[in-house]
Structures are given as structure tokens and as C-alpha cells.
């Protein structure tokens, strides 16, 4: 600071005419940024309004609470995924880690009671961190790596569960309460997701850690040359993904009281990625807003419910789901003419 004030330098004026086109460019960027932030919310509300008009009883009957409660595990996984996407990677194993977490929780809740969620979160965070360590230090593409660890975690879940449904034998009340009790009729599991989203939002927006992560996602080379601790931050992003997956596991146990390798939560990988992308996360990295991811998750949970609620034929629902996912991302994503999309 003292340096800035202490001296004045005479600099030749650079041509000011540059400002004109630059300013024009700024304006367009701003506009896109605005829609980018609002889009996921608008889309969610729009679909909701359509559903409300077609079936008013659904919304009146606590439909929103249902959407929120069923979006909770998706939301938690999507938030973790969004953090990984933000550093330009992807975590295909996080849903498997979440399910493994749920199984571990169901297994340990009886024997070690209150310590169990802690152990599970520690374990899933560690699983995520292992992914991150390999990505950061062996420098392998995360898509391929986590595809591999996905298989490993699935097998571990299958073996750990003894190939059967694991029920919480005792001490399940505390966890179950997360689903049973709620604020404004919405279970705590969802609010847990909102809390995580807000925390991650603060992390990304107001801390150097978050800034560093975003810098990695936008330009990793520049981040390296700016002495951003790229490796540690990547590990952290994956660890956060594991942590969120652990919370998703807790949410699953809270809802079902049991876990099995093919039961609740076994097919959340793609919905969670879709939720992150619908929530405005860029798949190429560097763009994420955890708060809009909440609406991404709500939208993903809403679509199948909405197709049922408005009475679309059961056999057409899959088609509608696919079409809506594409349409929603097409509507919410920010793009400019020159950008390259992979």
C-alpha cells in the first residue's frame, strides 16, 4: 500500500479509443451474467407454475415440501459435484461414495452411536481426498480416474453390506429426526443442503481458497504461475465432494433407515450432475454458484414428480424427462457466440 502512495510515475497515455469496443463487450457480458444467475430460479419457478396450473391440488398439498425433501440427497451430491466441476474436473464416483457412506452409517450406527456420522463423514471425505490426490499428483484425467474408483467404491459397498440391505439396528432416532422434523414443513435434510450451499457460496465468494479454486477452473496454468496451491485445492475440492457425499449418505439413512447397494441413492450420479449443470455450473470449470445449484437440484427432483402430477403417461415420462433436462440446460447456460463447447 505504501508503495502505491509513495510515488508517482509518468506514463505515456495509451490511446483511449480502445475503451469504446471494450465497453460494448462489457455490457454484453453483464447481461449474460445476470441471466446466468437468475436462470435456474426462473426455470424452476416456471415449471412449478405450469404444474400448479395443471394440478392446483399438488402444490396446495405440500408439493413443494415433497420436492424439497426428495431433492435433498441430489442437492448434496450436486453441491459436491459443483465444487469439483469448478476446478475443471469431474467426480463420477461421488454418488457411489455417498451410498457407501450410507451403508457404513447403517453398519456403525448401532455399535458406536453418535460417533458414527462423524466416522462416516471422515471416511467419505478421505475417499474423496484420495480421488483428489491421484488427480492432482498423478495428473490423470478425473473423468477416467473417478470412473475407475466408481467401480471400486461400488464393489466395496456391495461387500461391506454383505450383499444385502443393511438396517440401522439401533440409535437411528437422531439421524431419522433429520427427515422427520423440519423447518416450514421441509425436512432438515434439505435445509442441511441449503446450509452447505450457503457455506460453499461463502467459501467461493469470500475466501482465498474459493478464489483459488475458481482460478484453477478458469485457467489452471495461470493459477500455477500465480502460486495458487493448485494441487492442495484440487484435493480439497474432491474432499469436499466426498464430504457432501457423506452428508448425502446421512440424508439417505435419515429417509430410509437402511441402505443397500441397489437401494435408495444408488442411481443419483447422473441426476446430481444434471442438477449441478442446470444450476448454472459450467462443465468446463470456473463457473459455479452453489445457491443456484439448489434450484438445479429442485428442478431435477421436480421433473419426474411433475410428469406424474400432471398425469403424463407413465411410459412417456422418461422421454419427457430427457427432453426437459436438455431444454433446461439449453435455456439456463451462459454462452457467447465465439465460445467453444465440448
Amino acid at each position, binding site marked *: *500500500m505504501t*508503495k*502505491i*502512495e509513495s*510515488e*508517482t*510515475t*509518468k*506514463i*505515456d*497515455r*495509451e*490511446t*483511449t*479509443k*480502445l*475503451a*469504446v*469496443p*471494450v*465497453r*460494448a*463487450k*462489457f455490457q454484453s*457480458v453483464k447481461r449474460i451474467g445476470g441471466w446466468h444467475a437468475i436462470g435456474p430460479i426462473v426455470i424452476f419457478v416456471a415449471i412449478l407454475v405450469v404444474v400448479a396450473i395443471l394440478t392446483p391440488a399438488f402444490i396446495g398439498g405440500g408439493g413443494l415440501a415433497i420436492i424439497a425433501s426428495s431433492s435433498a440427497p441430489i442437492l448434496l451430491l450436486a453441491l459436491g459435484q459443483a465444487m469439483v466441476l469448478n476446478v475443471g474436473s469431474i467426480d463420477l464416483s461421488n454418488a457411489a461414495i455417498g451410498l457407501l457412506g450410507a451403508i457404513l452409517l447403517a453398519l456403525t450406527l448401532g455399535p458406536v452411536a453418535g460417533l458414527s456420522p462423524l466416522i462416516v463423514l471422515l471416511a467419505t471425505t478421505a475417499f474423496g481426498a484420495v480421488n483428489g490426490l491421484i488427480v492432482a499428483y498423478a495428473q490423470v484425467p478425473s473423468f477416467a480416474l473417478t470412473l475407475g474408483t466408481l467401480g471400486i467404491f461400488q464393489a466395496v459397498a456391495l461387500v461391506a453390506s454383505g450383499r444385502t440391505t443393511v438396517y440401522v439396528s439401533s440409535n437411528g432416532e437422531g439421524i431419522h429426526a433429520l427427515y422427520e422434523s423440519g423447518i416450514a414443513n421441509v425436512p432438515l435434510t434439505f435445509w442441511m443442503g441449503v446450509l452447505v450451499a450457503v457455506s460453499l457460496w461463502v467459501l467461493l*465468494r*469470500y*475466501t*482465498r*481458497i474459493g*478464489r*483459488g479454486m*475458481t*482460478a484453477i477452473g*478458469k*485457467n489452471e*496454468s*495461470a*493459477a*500455477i*504461475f*500465480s*502460486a*495458487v*496451491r493448485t494441487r492442495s485445492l484440487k484435493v480439497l475440492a474432491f474432499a469436499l465432494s466426498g464430504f457432501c457425499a457423506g452428508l448425502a449418505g446421512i440424508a439417505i439413512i435419515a429417509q430410509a433407515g437402511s441402505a443397500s447397494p441397489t437401494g435408495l441413492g444408488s442411481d443419483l450420479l447422473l441426476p446430481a450432475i444434471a442438477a449441478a449443470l442446470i444450476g448454472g455450473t459450467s462443465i468446463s470449470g*470456473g463457473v459455479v454458484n452453489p445457491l443456484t445449484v439448489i434450484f438445479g437440484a429442485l428442478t431435477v427432483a421436480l421433473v419426474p414428480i411433475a410428469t406424474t402430477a400432471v398425469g403424463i403417461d407413465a411410459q412417456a415420462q422418461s422421454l419427457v424427462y430427457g427432453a426437459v433436462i436438455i431444454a433446461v440446460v439449453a435455456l439456463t447456460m451462459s454462452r457467447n457466440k465465439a465460445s467453444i463447447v465440448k
Partner: protein
Amino acid sequence: MSDVTTPPAVLRLDAVSKSFGSNRAVRGVSLSIQPGQVIGLIGENGAGKSTLLKILSGNYRHDEGTIAVNGREVQFRGPADALRAGIGVVHQEQSLFTNLTIAENIEVNTPIGRGGVNRLGLYNWRRLYADAAQALDLIGSHLNPKTRVSDLSFVDRQMVEIARAIRVSAASHTTPLVILDEPTAILERTETAILEREISKLRDIGSVIFVSHRLDEVMRICDRVVVMRDGELIADRSVDDVTEEELFRLMVGRETHAAVRNRRSIEPATKPVISIQDLTRAGSYTDVSIDAYPGRVLAILGTSGSGREAVARAIFGAEGFDSGSVSIAGYSGRPSIKKAVALGVGYVPAERKTEGMVGEMPADQNITLTHPGSAAIGPFELPRRRLSLARLWFEKLDIRPREPEHMLQDFSGGNQQKVVLAKWLNSSDLKALVLDHPLRGLDPGAAETVNAQIRSVCDDGTAIILIPDTIDEALDIADDIVVMRDGRISGVFDLGHDNPATLDLLERML
């Protein structure tokens, strides 16, 4: 070049204009190029050069005026049209597919049905290689067309680009017009010399538009020089009737600085900030020892094989080395970027856009990315203070426009480079700054303001290690010059005492 027979002009522009909204980027440009002519096109960044080139390459469509190629009026609907008309552009940023062979890169634009594609739409590889070899031969290059471009050096890549431009015109049986958009900006001197030789050969085949920031090159290579300013073509001179100084004045619209060196030489402090001893990296450099002192600029000269960039990266901890030591402020442990930065070293990489800055991040966040200074308390950032801190830097370094909350990629090159500098200057304890080609791709005006900043940083007691683009740049700013050749130091000069001639330095480089 006299126009006695007046053959049809290879290219004739008549009052060509192009606007973006209210901004008239190109205004009524008229220009005519005869076969065998080499035209120099100069102008500051933002003068309208790139827009004009993009019109010629078919990327933009002009709003007004006419373009005629070989006497026929043309309307380019896309880059393919321009290519078919015989206009080949060698872009500023290299535009080769590094994963493909030389032959394919040369032939990639030839219209289907020719250039080694048979009737079934399949490539005839033998013919493809032969045609490519022929095109390379025309410009005197003996590269194997089967080589992948990723294995080539920069100068050879430029050759491939030129060969491609020529090949395209040959395939469409037109006189080629090759547009070289700052081909020498990232080349070393030796390589530039090779390139210059090749360009002069092009006269026999077609015409050339040569865009460069280096006025001396333009004077050497071209027959005529046209100058653009504010979107208009303000001068069209034969090189015989104009001086470098005059061109500079035309370009920027003001007088140039005296090229006389006006630095007060600071005597070296007793202790160097950075001291490297017998640094060796197999295949790159050997036994390099350099000391950099506070308040002095140390320039390392050398060609692309000299290993000087690798030494600079080793100092910053970005690349490893095999033996020797790098000691920064007395510390000489295991080097890493993190450690180097913690010890007060900054580094401005040559590849600004890919390594120096996060383009899609606002300028203020770029400035505080490494050293947040007062814009953060512990791990927490304070956006408002960050912005005001950035405003101070914008003011101090005259970064325009004064809107640090905007994406850095939307600023012009010179302003971007100043933001990159500010990123390091924001350190409370900057001891040394390693600058790898800090002026690359900047127009003279911008280069001058960046240079001024480097000088003032140095005067504040920071040691500067500079990898300059040109010898002149080194002579202009350095206190010490180290010359490297083939990975070894071939000369050391203290400009306080020595007064090496350019030729002297050049000899030690080659």
C-alpha cells in the same frame, strides 16, 4: 518496383469500411498491391489492422467499399472463400493443428476434389505428402511432410503456415497473397532472420502483406509501408522515402523517445537477491551462474536454443534442474513456485493469455490472486477493499479503462500485461521479478508504458531478471546483460562499465 506494364493488382481495396455498432473500426481504406510486392502494414493495437485482416481472411464482412482480387470483385462469405481466392493468412496466434502432420496442415484447406482427395472422398496420402513437399520446397524448406507439427519448433511452424498459404493459392491457380500477421513476434533473432529470407523468396511467387510491430524489420523486408491509425490508412510510403522515426510518429501520432539510454546506473548492492550457481539441466543448459542485485535489471540474451527461458523458469521454481543451486534471499532449499513466491519472487510468463492471467476473472481478482495484501484478512477476502486496491493500481499503472471489476480478457494486451505486473507488485515484499518476454505482442505505445513500469519497479529496489524480445530492448533497460548460447553463458556485461555493441552481443548469441 515500377508499374510500367500495370498488371492487374493482386489485391485492390476501395474505400472499405467496417463498423461494430457505433465504433467504426475500419474507415474507407483503399489499397492496391501488385504481384511480387511486399507491403508492410503497421499501426498500434486498436488501429484497425486486425479488423482489416479479418475482412481479408473472410472472417468479417465489410460494410462498405469493394474488394477485388486479381481484377475480379469478390465477396467473401467465409474463410474458405478467401482461401479459394488465393489469400492465405498466417495468424498471429499459430493456427496449426499440432496433432496432425505437416502435410495435412498444408493441405487442409485445399478444396475437396483436389489436394490428394480422390473421387471417393478419400485422402490419397502419397499425393498429399508429395504436394506438401512441393509447397515446402517452394519456400526452401526441407521438412518431412509426415512429421507431426507438435514436434516442430516455432520457426518451422511458421514455415508450414506460409507453405500452407501458398499451397492454397496454387491449388486454386491464383497468384497467392500471403498475409503474415506478426510472424516474428514470438521468434528469436536467428529464427527471424531465417523467416526474413523465406519472405523475400515469396516475391517470386506472389505478394505479401507483412504486419509487424518491429519497424526495423518492416524497413528491411518490405517495399512499401502502409500505416493505419484510428481505422484509417493514413500513410502509404516506399521504404526508401521514410525513416523508422517517421513511421513511429505516423503510427502513434507523437514523437518517439530518444533511443539514448538515460538510466542512472545503480552500483550493485553487496548481496545478490538471487544467486544461481552452476545450474545444469540436461539437454537445456549447463553450468549457468547468475547473480541478480536489487535495483538492477539483468537481461539474459540468447536464441531459442540458448536455454534462457528454462533458466528463468528454474529461478521461479516452475521447472526442475539436475544440479547446481538457486538461492533466493539466502534460501537455497528445494525449489518450488510456492517457495519462490513466498521468498518474494514474481514471474511474468511469456504466454500471457494462457499462463499469465485468468482472463475470465475480473481484473481486481487477478491482481489480488497471489498477494491479496490488504484485500484479505486471513483466508477471507474483502471484495470492497479488493476493488479499491485494484483502483489504486489502475490509477498508478494507468490501466484503461478504469474498471477493475471487468473481466481481464476484455482489456487490451498492454493493459492486461500491466494487470499481470500489478499482481506481483501488490506483494508487500517483492524482492525480484522475472520477466519472460514482457513486451511480446504489445504495440509500441503499450510496450513503452510497460517498460516504464518495469523501470520504476526496479528503482524501488527490486531485482529484475529480464528475458527481452530484442537486443535493443535489453540495451534500453538493462544494467547487466548475460548472453547465453547453447545452454552456456557466453558473455557477461555490466553496462555501467562496458558498452557492448549490438553486433558484439549478437556474435555471442550465435
